[in-house]
């Protein structure tokens, strides 16, 4: 049986959107797929050595429940409907929401992003960073994890053109 191939483009730079590419890549690798992820624009945040840039923002995100990860059950069940205008003026609101989300992630036995990323690397998922956006955002190669390759759109198509599944996230 020929090895199946999964090609992905990761474009988002928030904690929540770092999950789908790493979950799908690690799972596909476990199923025997050859996997490649092309990180471009904000997706570059996922392959930096420092992952503190990955945050979650409830601002302008009406789909996100705002629930507390601690306290009694009735308290955890409350959805804190904080208006965008209020969220926008509180300094550090995103950092606060991010730390609450990280607690929720831990409470639910969901893997952390550093954990999923290293599982991908152990499983030989190939990471490619978009050289153009690296320069555009003023990053240098030393900002990124080892084992990353740098290339452009043509590099992506070399693998994606032969892939069985191709996703833009």
């Amino acid at each position, binding site marked *: 049986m020929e090895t199946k191939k999964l090609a992905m483009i990761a474009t988002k730079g928030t904690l929540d959107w770092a999950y789908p590419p790493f*979950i799908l890549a690690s*799972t596909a690798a476990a199923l025997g797929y050859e996997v490649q992820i092309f990180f471009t624009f904000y997706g570059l945040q996922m392959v930096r050595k420092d992952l503190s840039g990955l945050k979650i923002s409830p601002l302008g995100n009406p789909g996100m429940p705002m629930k507390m990860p601690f306290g009694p059950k009735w308290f955890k069940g409350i959805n804190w409907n904080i208006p965008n205008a209020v969220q926008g003026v509180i300094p550090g609101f995103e950092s606060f929401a991010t730390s609450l989300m990280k607690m929720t992630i831990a409470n639910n036995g969901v*893997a952390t992003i550093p954990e999923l990323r290293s599982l991908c690397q152990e499983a030989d998922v190939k990471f490619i960073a978009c050289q153009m956006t690296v320069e555009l955002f003023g990053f240098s190669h030393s900002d990124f994890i080892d084992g990353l390759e740098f290339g452009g759109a043509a590099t992506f198509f070399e693998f994606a053109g032969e892939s069985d599944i191709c996703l833009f996230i």
Partner: protein
Amino acid sequence: MEFNKELDARGLNCPLPILRTKKALAEMASGEILKVLATDPGSVKDMQAFAKQTGNDLVNSAEAGGEYTFFMKKK
């Protein structure tokens, strides 16, 4: 049911039970049986899908009190 190795994936959520199963199987010999314990309700469909796609044999699975037990025979 007899088994050669046990994996405790209780409390772990998608995709960790599958990834740990894959890792545990990699260290086993062909024909050996891995017992997996899980609490993720999604693991029921996922274990079947994993077996189907990797060629390993899900010989038995059971549920009791919110806990799932799987027996996976390595290809």
